[in-house]
């Protein structure tokens, strides 16, 4: 116990790897054993995160539960991890969604052991990014997360998986190149990769660097960071990998991809771009807001134009993540004001909320895909009487995605709109077009799947949602409702973090 008390974060971070190692020695044909081992193992980080949450003091500025170990002395990189209110929220999201994704994968029968191991490794990769307080460590985990996801899409995906997984991998790696160079430049310049130190050093750095004025170098490095994260979010026009990757990934893969991996990009903006480049962020905030609004509008239109249920949901992520970036851009423009704090609160809450509702939506698409073996919206129709419970849950989750007041999405979208209105009035008004079409694509999904004359083809073939599936979606629904009605429990942590961080 003593060890866990003093190493709470690293225990959460590396427990999935340990579990994966153990699983490697389990017999590969004992599917039941493998599934349950993976599921129970993934519950441990979740429970520890609850402990973490309860011990976390939101009133303290800076990072808590810090751990720092010698790692790569020659280049002054240390294994430094810690959490504040922002990362804590994301850690909670990750450790919550991973067990649910594993539970959702109980129907996978192909190479179960490897599949489960990849999920556990993925969890560590994602958690590492959220906990890292050292730029190099951040980058290492950033890249580690890619590998399991690549194989999950490439090996367990559907028809077009080779194209999708390659696009996902190459695109993200291409974005990371600039990030790596910029990180190395900082490391060489200051002889440290430690984030809290760089927060002080880099924004105040003046003079010349490599024969160029510091401002120019900073601008270039700023865009290197921004492009890497923009691809991950993804921001229009870097978004086209997402519909392919989501559509081809296995259900649980899409859940984590939409639920957590996209948040890595947004987290990068909040953790690195804004604090390290306050002046550049302010200067280019307008451009970011423009891209955000394009994502909101064309994400919604793109979604509305789909006939593939999963692709429709995939595009909706672009639309929703656009609000995160809009909030970030507004905050970057007017950092320190109440408007900025509200916009940031909205952005972070939107990250969490989208994690819940997008994971839920992808799961629900998976439920019906598993039964019908098609995602073509035109092949469904009138399924409500066949799957009444599923239908109710689908409407509930869709409404969360649509931003119905009383459910979580509304709170965060409202805060983003409120926060960015005084800062980017025109862009905020334009974003309403996207919000309008959010309604259009959500209702299109419900219309094509549940409503209309019953498609007789499915009578007797489709069964309602089962107990295991209910257990996957129920926690998400409870959280969706509880944040919608009483967001203060999570907003208190986020709000204090945002107030102290910026």
């Amino acid at each position, binding site marked *: 116990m003593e060890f866990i008390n003093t190493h709470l974060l690293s225990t959460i971070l590396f427990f999935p790897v340990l579990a994966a190692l153990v699983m490697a020695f389990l017999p590969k044909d004992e599917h039941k054993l493998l599934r349950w081992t993976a599921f129970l193992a993934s519950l441990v980080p979740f429970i520890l995160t609850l402990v973490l949450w309860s011990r976390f003091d939101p009133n303290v500025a800076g990072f808590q539960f810090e751990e720092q170990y010698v790692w790569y002395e020659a280049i002054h990189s240390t294994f430094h991890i810690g959490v504040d209110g922002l990362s804590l929220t994301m850690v909670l999201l990750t450790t919550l969604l991973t067990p649910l994704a594993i539970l959702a994968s109980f129907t996978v029968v192909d190479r179960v052991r490897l599949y489960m191991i990849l999920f556990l490794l993925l969890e560590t990769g994602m958690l590492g990014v959220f906990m890292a307080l050292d730029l190099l460590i951040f980058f290492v985990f950033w890249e580690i997360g890619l590998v399991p996801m690549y194989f999950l899409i490439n090996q367990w995906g559907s028809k077009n998986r080779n194209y999708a997984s390659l696009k996902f991998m190459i695109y993200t790696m291409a974005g990371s190149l600039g990030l790596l160079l910029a990180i190395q430049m900082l490391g060489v310049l200051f002889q440290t990769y430690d984030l809290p130190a760089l927060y002080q050093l880099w924004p105040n750095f003046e003079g010349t660097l490599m024969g160029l004025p510091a401002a120019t170098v900073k601008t270039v490095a700023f865009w290197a960071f921004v492009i890497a994260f923009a691809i991950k979010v993804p921001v229009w026009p870097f978004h*086209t990998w997402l519909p392919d990757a989501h559509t081809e990934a296995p259900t649980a893969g899409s859940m984590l991809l939409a639920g957590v991996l996209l948040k890595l990009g947004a987290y990068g903006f909040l953790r690195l771009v804004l604090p390290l480049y306050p002046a550049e962020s302010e200067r280019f905030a307008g451009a970011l807001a423009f891209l955000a609004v394009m994502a909101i509008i064309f994400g919604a*239109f793109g979604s509305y134009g789909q006939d593939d249920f999963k692709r429709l949901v995939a595009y909706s992520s672009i639309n929703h993540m656009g609000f995160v970036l809009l909030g970030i851009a507004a905050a970057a423009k007017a950092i320190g004001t109440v408007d900025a704090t509200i916009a940031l609160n909205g952005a972070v809450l939107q990250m969490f909320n989208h994690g819940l509702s997008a994971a839920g939506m992808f799961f629900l698409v998976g439920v019906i895909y598993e039964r019908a073996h098609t995602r073509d919206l035109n092949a469904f129709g009138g399924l*409500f*009487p066949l799957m009444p419970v599923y239908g109710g849950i689908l409407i509930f989750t869709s409404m969360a995605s649509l931003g119905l007041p009383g459910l979580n999405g509304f709170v965060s979208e409202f805060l983003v709109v*409120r926060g960015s*209105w005084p800062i980017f009035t025109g862009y905020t*008004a334009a974003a*309403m*077009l996207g919000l*309008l079409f959010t309604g259009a694509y959500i209702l299109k999904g419900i219309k094509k799947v549940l409503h209309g004359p019953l498609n007789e083809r499915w009578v007797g073939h489709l069964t309602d949602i089962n107990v295991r599936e209910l257990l996957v979606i129920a926690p998400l629904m409870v959280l969706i409702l509880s944040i919608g009605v009483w967001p203060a429990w999570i907003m208190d942590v986020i709000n204090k973090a945002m107030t102290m961080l910026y």
Partner: protein
Amino acid sequence: MATETLIWLLPLPPLLAFFLIVLFTRKNKALSHTVAVSAAFLSWLGGMIVFIRALGVEHLGQEPFHSTINWLPTGDTWFKLGVMIDPLSAIVLFFVAWTVLMIFLYSVGYHNFGQPKGDHDRPGLPPHGATVTDEHGHSHTVPSVEPMYSRFFAFIGLFAFGMYLLVVSDNLFTLFAGWEIMGLCSYLLIGFWYAKPSARDAAIKAFMTTRVGDVFMLLGIAFLYSATGTLTFTEIFQPEVLHALATTQTPVLGLSAAGLIGLLLFIGTVGKSAQWPLHVWLPDAMEGPTPVSAMIHAATMVSAGVYAVIRMFPLTSQDPNTMAIIAFIGAFTALFAASIAVAQNDIKRVLAYSTISQLGYMIAAIGIGAYVAAAFHLVTHAFFKALLFLGSGSVIHGMEHGVLHTGEHVDPQDMFNMGGLKDKMPITFWTFLIGGFALSGFPIVTAGFWSKDEIFADAFAHGYTGVFITLALAAFMTAFYTMRQITLTFFGEPRTAAAEHASETPWTMTVPLMVLSVFAIGFGWVGIPEHFPGLGGILPNWFHEFVGSTLAEPPAAVEFSWIPLMTSLTVALGGLYAGWAVYRNVKSPQEDWLQIHWLQNKWYFDEAYNFLFVKPAYWIADTFTYKWMDRGLIDGILHAVGNIAGKIGHALRTYFDVPVINGAGDALADGTRKLGISMRVIQTGRIQQYMVSSLAVIIIVGAVLYYFFIA
């Protein structure tokens, strides 16, 4: 219980009923409706207690029941939410509680509780009837119970929650929440029979059209919150806050901040209350079951839109430009919708257009500053329009009974298939007549007369002649189409066998009709102007005093004038007479000279919107965004980059790797091999030869070393 606590609790019973039905009792029809109706009753009871206590407070306008909590941290401060009952919300609460309870009760009968299960009914379609055999061995077709009976009560429970939430809100945030929750319920209930494509499409149309208004409203809320730091009504309506908003200019249409916020919020109302140009969804919404039409699309949700404008009056009235826009939209809608109503043949569609038109009256009244008159008409209209919708539902129900009995294939909603129902359905007839006369503004006795008269008086007294004339014309049409409806439905001879066999509906349906007719008559008497000839002053003008006190400066009662009164009498009586005179002998649509295509097709707004917005939107989504931009341009660039990278790689291989690197490598390897081959001759395997070779090497090396280093 403290009144504030009670107000907090008011919306909860129907919400609880929703969850109880969805989670536990959905399999049991009787239990489900018991839960729902009891919940509606509890909220009604609480509402009445709050209302009565509100009457007892002397300066309720200045000191309303008010209670807030901290809801959301925003920086160093909290965003607060709370509940409030002031005179305006008290009066709205009163009619909401009554109409909701009546409609819940009515739904039990409307969905054929107690009737057998249908022979071929399936969820998602209206019940088709069941065959039963009586004691004589004759088989009859009778109405069958709704297959999704419990679900209906769950939905209306959630709906009632939304409405109560909206009424007790002390701020725009929860008002908007209630507003949107009702929007969702409206969508779910219009599309209740979701397997019908027409119902499904109507539901989407309703949701999307109102959402157009809602996104503007959301901007208005964000603007207001940014500008004032609060969304609580009492704080916004502080004189210094209002003054600051009124004196801030915005670049839009020359409006002040107050005017622009008011306009944005008003666009929300245009959607919700189905005002032109966002009126198109309401007539289609009649696809839903009739209690839904009565509750959502007559008494509560569409009224909520008007309520919001009345609520924001202190803000909106700061800018005359916004007020002019509001007055124009209201007056135009009142006339425009009435013109369509005269040419409709579906009994519910007439009422739908009538609702749009009457809501236009209220909006116009607010636009000309007639605060109390708008609120008064809001209340009386809620009662008599709910009554009319429920009455029409009763008529349809009676007709369906006849259709099932006779097996005749006629549309039970088409008024030309009716006639003579006066004797078949007496309770329905008398209550419908009361409702219809109230709607027409039949003098003195009906509530509609008093509220409509007050709007006329206000418009005339304040010199809004254009609005006055428009509304008078609309009032004439209102009386005309109402009497047309009553004549076609109830008078004359039955025109079909189904009408011949129509029968009165059960008590659960007729009792609500009777209760609502009491209000359709009596509620007008609480607002008789003081100077009205003969009657003024007998009863105090309580409504004006009470609701007027909501405002910081209660509006003065207008001077009495004969002109608006005579106008009001003429249009109401003239319209009623004309309607009767024209339609008492009309037997079929062919004889009806008002079946004008332009009117029947609602001025072709649906077609125009389809052409201008719906189709282009899909084209932008499917073709432009997805096929051209994402698949074509962006992915095209990506693939091009990929291809170029591939080509460069290929070129490197063909022109550099292969000739230079491979060439050099190969050359090296070849050279080595050739050297090896040529050297092989000395590898003989004989020790003697090696010894000789070694000796030779040693001698040579020794000689060389000697030569260079020693010599």
